């Protein structure tokens, strides 16, 4: 596309944007946090109240909840994968879409949905400090991971291989163990690892459903900060959490590598379901459908129920100038504009990182580095921004908070933006650049007439995805948002800490609005992404 020198220069300029952003808002705050954790530097006079024993309990709770969440996810998810992918049947795509939808919901929405189920429908979920509800909520989120990871592996298993095994005398059990399991075991391993990773970083769920009684590393960091104003303690916990997540990420990336000699094919033959298969399909799907449908339906019903029956009072209260509803209405506006700016920032960073990697292979590390914030969890990002930038710059006032909130949301959204943009850019055959150049197109015209039109849908999709992530972001925002101008997720959680049925109803209405905002953005992103694939 460009001569080597100009290509390198453009790549360097493109790489400079994400490098500068990550250096200021991610690497520097992390280094300050690490230093604070080790010797208390930067937070002078601070001493930590956290004990080694408390740290150990928090680490064990984190791993225990993640293991239980992963286990339940697999128990419910794998039969659903089987039911959706072994046979073709009408409506399977719709059911799959409904079951994977929860993945895009903000954690606060899901947490509130399960809180409502616990209070109104299944009180037993509240036993043992709400741990059953936390585990169920973890499975709610991550069944989508199993469906999205194992589903393609199973559905791309060529039915002719199964037929070949059967004609060689393989019984259904043998077919499962010798043909189907080898085809999906990597995907199951990958899904388990990713689920474990997500379960280990489910701050919002644990905080809302477990309160202060269930302390994972993330909630312990939050409690150290909010209850004891212990910055160093939070820094230490954040550092441990970051190490744990990086370790899990490394294991995850190893498990998700595609094996040599896969049994899956790109154009598989699948056969239609018969009446005989119906029972198995229904039995396989029922637990997942109940897990996903009950909390969401309960949440919507709760938001529409008042002291005297069905009412829109909670929704009206969101926009009225009194009581709890006023802060929620204001926080919706705050969240909306913050998310729009964060989405634009994340997309700009993503475009620059992706373009730099495409232009110059030496800049590929920049693209890889954008995944960093995801690899350490949003809570770590929030704690690092608080200790590394918010505390030192507190004299700068409200504007610092706004900038840091946008940066936090953009940091969390950027890895997903890159995941959308990179394949779209990689899909453009480099010979098209050459063809355009031989037809007289300058480098600038190649970008305008060849690359930009091909990337337009991907960029639109990336912005939608980034908005959906940013508007529901809670893990980092909760450490940065000021009480006077909270984002919608932080306002919902603060409302939950106040007593009264009206507050629960208002929080439910806020959660439904949040789900609609994130869901709509995600649907738009998904639709444009399908356009990209076409």
């Amino acid at each position, binding site marked *: 596309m460009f001569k080597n020198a100009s290509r390198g220069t453009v790549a360097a300029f493109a790489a400079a944007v994400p490098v500068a952003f990550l250096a200021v808002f991610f690497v520097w705050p992390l280094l300050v946090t690490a230093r604070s954790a080790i010797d208390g530097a930067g937070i002078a006079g601070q001493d930590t109240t956290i004990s080694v024993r408390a740290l150990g309990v928090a680490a064990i709770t984190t791993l225990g909840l993640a293991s239980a969440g992963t286990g339940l996810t697999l128990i419910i998810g794998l039969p659903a994968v089987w039911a959706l992918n072994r046979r073709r049947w009408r409506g399977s795509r719709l059911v799959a879409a409904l079951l994977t939808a929860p993945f895009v919901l903000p954690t606060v929405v899901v947490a509130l949905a399960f809180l409502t189920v616990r209070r109104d429908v299944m009180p037993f979920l509240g036993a043992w400090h709400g741990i059953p509800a936390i585990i169920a909520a973890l499975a709610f989120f991550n069944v989508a991971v199993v469906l999205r990871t194992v589903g393609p592996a199973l559905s791309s298993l060529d039915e002719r291989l199964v037929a*070949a*095994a059967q004609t060689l*005398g393989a019984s259904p059990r043998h077919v499962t163990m010798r043909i189907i399991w*080898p085809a999906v075991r990597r995907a199951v391993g990958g899904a388990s690892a990713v689920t474990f990773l997500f379960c280990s970083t489910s701050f919002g769920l644990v905080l809302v459903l477990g309160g202060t009684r269930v302390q994972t590393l993330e909630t312990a960091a939050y409690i150290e900060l909010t209850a004891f104003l212990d910055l160093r303690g939070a820094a230490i916990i954040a550092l441990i959490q970051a190490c744990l997540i990086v370790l899990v990420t490394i294991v995850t990336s190893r498990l998700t590598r595609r094996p*040599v*000699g896969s*049994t899956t094919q790109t154009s598989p033959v699948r056969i*239609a379901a018969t009446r005989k298969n119906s029972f198995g399909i229904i039995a396989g799907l029922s637990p997942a459908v109940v897990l996903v449908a009950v909390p969401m339906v309960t949440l919507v019903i709760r938001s529409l129920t008042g002291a005297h029956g069905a009412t829109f009072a909670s929704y009206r209260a969101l926009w009225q100038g009194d009581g709890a509803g006023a802060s929620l209405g204001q926080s919706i506006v705050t969240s909306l504009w913050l998310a729009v700016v964060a989405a634009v920032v994340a997309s700009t960073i993503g475009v620059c990182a992706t373009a730099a990697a495409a232009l110059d292979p030496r800049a590929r590390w920049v693209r890889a580095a954008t995944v960093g914030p995801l690899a350490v969890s949003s809570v770590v990002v929030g704690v690092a921004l608080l200790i590394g930038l918010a505390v030192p710059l507190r004299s700068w006032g409200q504007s610092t908070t706004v900038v840091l909130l946008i940066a936090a949301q953009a940091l969390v959204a950027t890895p997903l933006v890159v995941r959308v943009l990179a394949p779209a850019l990689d899909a453009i055959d480099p010979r098209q650049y050459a063809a355009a150049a031989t037809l007289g197109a300058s480098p600038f015209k190649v970008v305008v007439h060849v690359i930009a039109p091909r990337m337009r849908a991907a960029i639109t999709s990336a912005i939608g995805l980034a908005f959906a992530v940013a508007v529901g972001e809670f893990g980092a925002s909760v450490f940065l948002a000021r009480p006077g101008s909270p984002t919608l997720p932080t306002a919902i959680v603060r409302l939950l800490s106040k007593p009264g049925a009206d507050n629960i109803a208002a929080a439910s209405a806020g959660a439904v609005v949040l789900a609609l905002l994130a869901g709509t953005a995600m649907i738009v992103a998904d639709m444009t992404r399908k356009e990209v694939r076409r």
Partner: protein
Amino acid sequence: MTTGLAVRGLNVTYPGSTPRFAVRDATFSVPTNSSLALVGPSGSGKSSLLLAIAGVVPSTGALTWDGEDLRAVPTYRRGVGVVFQDGQLFPHLSVGDNVGFGLEMLGLRPRDRASRVQELLELVGLSGTEKRPVTELSGGERQRIALARTLAPRPRLVLLDEPLSSLDADLRVRLAVEVREVLVAAGATWIVVTHDRAEADVMASQLLTVVDGRVAKRHPRPSSAPLKAP
């Protein structure tokens, strides 16, 4: 009672809201130790007919072997081996494990399996390839291994679904002769499906034409065919 395979009024339908016949009222027989070629254009239903005999796709009508109703027997107990169009070798298994798969399903001990695998590999001219990954094989080698894998558990009937269509013309002619020799040496009864009349002449002693799902006509094997019938 007919010995060997007897097909009477067999129907196969494509699934869907308005079922369409892939095979309609097929009637023919294949005596033990004989061979038959089903010839017809693409989409005529010959592969569906083959897969119905193997039990891979559901069918209606009568399907018997030595008088035993095959439709009541699940695919994995029918003793009907299939060589698929593109081999359908298991890519996660080695050559030896592919050829030995059916033997393992029969419950043969590893030592017995190994000697039978060796025997089959020798028969198809690929001795010493047991440890090779199947992903490294050429097209011709893959089809030879697919044939060896099918023959290993000694099926009573071998079905070959366009076994050579993915190969280039020269190799196809050579391999057609080789496959036939291997099947004769193994004492097999077989049905081969092909759209190539010349290939059918080489590979089987009897010919049936399949058009629009109907088995049309039995042709005598031309005298110019290069090999004897088993």
